[in-house]
C-alpha cells in the first residue's frame, strides 16, 4: 500500500501533551479519519486522554471522524484540533 508523508500540527492542549508544534508522519495514502486518529494515538499514546474530545483537520478543513475512505497526498497538513475556545 502506498504510504505518504504528511505534516502534523498540534495546538493548545495537544501541543502541550506531545511537547511539540509539528511533526512529519507517514500514513497509508488510502485511509479514514478514524484510522488516522488511531494511528496518531499509537504514535503518541499520551494523546489518548483527549482522544474523545478532538477532531482533525486536513488542509484546513474539518474532517468528520468516520470510516469513509479518504486519500492523503504527500505534503498534506493534518492538524489535531482540541475543543476550540476563541471569541
Amino acid at each position, binding site marked *: 500500500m502506498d504510504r505518504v508523508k504528511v505534516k502534523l500540527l498540534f*495546538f493548545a492542549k495537544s501541543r502541550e501533551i506531545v511537547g511539540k508544534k509539528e511533526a512529519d508522519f507517514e500514513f497509508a495514502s488510502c485511509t479514514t479519519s478514524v484510522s488516522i486518529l488511531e494511528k496518531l494515538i499509537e504514535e503518541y499514546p499520551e494523546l489518548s486522554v483527549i482522544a474523545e474530545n478532538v477532531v482533525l483537520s486536513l488542509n484546513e478543513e474539518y474532517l468528520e471522524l468516520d470510516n469513509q475512505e479518504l486519500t492523503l497526498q504527500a505534503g498534506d497538513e493534518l492538524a489535531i484540533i482540541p475543543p476550540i475556545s476563541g471569541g
Partner: protein
Amino acid sequence: MSGECNTAAELDTVGPAAEGGQDHVDVVEDKLSVEAITAQATSPTSGAVALFVGTTRNNFDGKSVLRLEYEAYMPMAKKKMLETCELVRSKWEVENIVMIHRIGVVPVQEASIVIAVSSPHRKEALEAVHFAIDHVKATVPVWKKEIYGDESSSWKQNQECKWSGAHPPAS
C-alpha cells in the same frame, strides 16, 4: 470566559445599500482598537454599525484570572472567519464585516475579539453580529488558556464547540 457587550450605534445616514461590501478578517497580536475597527466597518450608505466586543474576565469559578493566552491555527482561523462572513451575507443584507481576533497574551479586561457589521438598518446589523460571534465560537480554531492567581492554568472550551463533549464535529 468572555464577558461581552453588544451595542448598536445608529448613524444619521440611511441610504441605499452599497453593491457588495467588504469582508475584513484578521488574527493579530496587538491590542484591538474598537474605534478603528468600527470606522473600518462604517460606510456612507450604512444606517447602523453593530459591534460585538469580547473581553477577558478576571475570574472563573471563584478563582482570580491573572491573564489569558490565545493561540490560533492561523490560516485556518482566517479561512473559517471568512466563511462566517459569507454565511452572514447569505442570511442578512449587510455592508461591511470586520472581524479581528487577538492572540498571544491578553490582559484581563482587554478585548480578545471585535466584530463590526454595518448595514442600512440596525436589525440586520444586530442579528448578523450575534450570529457571527456564535458561529466564530463554534468553528474558528482559536484556543484560550486561563492562567490563575496560583499559576495553575486551564484550556477553555466554548459551549458552542460541538466536539468538546463527544464526537462528532464540526461543519
